[in-house]
């Protein structure tokens, strides 16, 4: 490492991941919109033979948005902001640069292959862990490469103090590594069932209740370390940087961090309330879920307070709007989740549409908004051009906000209606409704959700177009903007 006056941050890897964020975002949300429409209009299941059915497409949707879109976004922002808060350029180490590039290409090829394999129906049948064992091995490799790049950069850093965002990226790295390994312990059926099994198809090493417990310890913490921790990492860097305001309280960010690490891991059993899991464990899941409000709101309020005295920026800068809305939706979903984890509420909510409703106010309002805002902020710095259109961004903001609201309100109504109808009994104790009665009642809400999908997807296309124009034909910038991103 040597200082060099002409040295600059190197965004080549961040750019590559930016492209895949947009690509997989579009693909994942297109499929999301299609499956939402299928739930409202079942004929749409028969467009593409076996490849177009809801059951085939749903895991494709979840895997593409999680491992395609969100992870790409996490890495794009990491390779961008990691260098900056560590004050070291990727260009300073040929080794780290090479690792970053291999990280990207291995990831990209594996992600495409995984999409194909899921479309063909290869699956381990564990939610969010559907990919078969050969993919798991590649995933581990990809993860290790990220680790080498990250700790490599940390190793040669100029800024010895690690900014809070880095803590969160490191937590994402360690958390997912642990969860993924343990949940994906599996044996090919070939080895356990004589000659009838298949070498490529595997089953979990755990069974029954234990399997369920490990699965939801993983599933819930995948939300924690995939949808929360790295997104918090982003907002702690991008909101202060875009607004020019240092984070309101750095100490609050530290203690929210440790609070989150401490509490999150114990909350997973709230996915298994009223099941065969030991009672004390269910209660623990409920209690920790409620406590989880504190560290979550700690970060979110810290972000809102960062804007103290600068609220005019909310009206002037659409990027701030995206980020403030994101942290507001983060607060909404981290309040909603604990409510759903209360045992009596869960008795109504479980298995109903309220759950996907909750998932999507989190992901659409928080995860996607934050990732898009981060990429918008990065674009003028990476491509040295101003953002193509502020108007388009404003329109996109309102369109997508409407879509999120339509999505979760329709699912709240649908879910609670469903939960109440399933348990309604007449004076003799007979169930009052059959399943199809609920389907008929819910039809309009499913149609609203499908519409929400179309609106949100349209908004995402506007984002993609705005980014594309920014990269290719927007006005060139002579120097890097310090805080507020320039836009036409």
């Amino acid at each position, binding site marked *: 490492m040597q200082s060099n006056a002409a040295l600059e*941050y190197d965004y080549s890897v961040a750019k590559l991941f930016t492209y895949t964020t947009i690509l997989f975002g579009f693909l994942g949300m297109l499929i999301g919109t299609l499956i939402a429409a299928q739930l409202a209009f079942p004929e749409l299941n028969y467009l593409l033979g076996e490849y177009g059915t809801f059951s085939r497409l749903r895991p494709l949707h979840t895997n593409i948005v999680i491992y395609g879109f969100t992870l790409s976004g996490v890495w794009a922002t990491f390779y961008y902001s990691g260098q900056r*808060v560590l*004050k070291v350029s990727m260009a300073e180490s040929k080794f780290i640069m090479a690792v970053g590039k291999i990280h990207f290409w291995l990831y990209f090829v594996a992600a495409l292959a995984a999409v194909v394999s899921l479309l063909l129906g290869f699956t381990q049948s564990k939610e969010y862990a559907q990919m078969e064992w050969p993919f798991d091995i590649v995933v581990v490799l990809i993860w290790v490469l990220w680790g080498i790049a990250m700790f490599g950069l940390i190793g040669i850093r100029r800024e*010895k*103090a690690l*900014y809070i965002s880095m803590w969160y990226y490191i937590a994402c790295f360690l958390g997912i590594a642990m969860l993924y390994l343990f949940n994906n312990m599996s044996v090919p059926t070939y080895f356990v069932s004589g000659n009838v099994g298949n070498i490529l198809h595997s089953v979990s090493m755990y069974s029954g209740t234990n399997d369920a417990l490990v699965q939801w310890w993983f599933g819930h913490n995948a939300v924690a370390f995939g949808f929360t921790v790295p997104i918090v990492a982003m907002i702690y860097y991008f909101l*202060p940087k875009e607004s020019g305001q240092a984070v309101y*309280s750095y*100490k609050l960010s*530290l203690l929210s961090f440790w609070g989150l690490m401490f509490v999150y891991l114990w909350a997973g059993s709230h996915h298994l309330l009223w099941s065969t899991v030991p009672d004390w464990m269910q209660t623990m899941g409920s209690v920790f879920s409620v406590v989880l409000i504190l560290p979550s709101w700690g970060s979110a309020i810290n972000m809102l307070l960062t804007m103290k005295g600068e609220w005019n920026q909310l009206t002037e800068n659409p990027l701030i709007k995206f980020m403030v809305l994101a942290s507001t939706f983060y607060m909404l979903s981290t309040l909603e989740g604990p409510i759903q984890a209360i045992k009596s509420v869960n008795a109504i909510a479980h298995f109903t549409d309220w759950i996907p409703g909750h998932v999507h106010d989190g992901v659409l309002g928080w995860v996607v908004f934050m990732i898009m805002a981060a990429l918008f902020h990065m674009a003028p710095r990476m491509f040295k051009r101003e953002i193509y259109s502020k108007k388009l961004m404003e329109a996109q903001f309102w369109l997508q906000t409407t879509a999120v609201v339509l999505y979760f309100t329709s699912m709240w109504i649908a879910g609670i209606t469903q939960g109440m109808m399933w348990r309604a009994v007449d004076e003799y104790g007979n169930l009052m409704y059959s399943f199809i009665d609920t389907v008929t009642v819910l039809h309009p809400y499913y149609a609203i959700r499908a519409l929400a999908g179309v609106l949100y997807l349209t908004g995402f296309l506007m984002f993609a177009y705005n980014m594309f124009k920014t990269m290719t034909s927007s006005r060139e910038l002579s120097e890097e903007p310090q805080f507020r991103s320039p836009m036409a």
Partner: protein
Amino acid sequence: MGIRELQGYASFFMTIFLVVMLYGYIVYLYRSEKKGKKDYEKLGKIALDDELDSTPINTSDPLPTDNKEQNK
């Protein structure tokens, strides 16, 4: 005492231990700043002043500079 019971006690006492540690940390953070020994808020500047050639803060335990106004 069976393994289950042991696990139960272990998890209970670990929770208590971690809670104490977390609260201890919080108290430590705020107290050392109040006494004027540390200034953690300086670290927030890392995100704003992030040019390759800008001066690093270089310690995660920064000492306060003269102006105390900034502490929150």
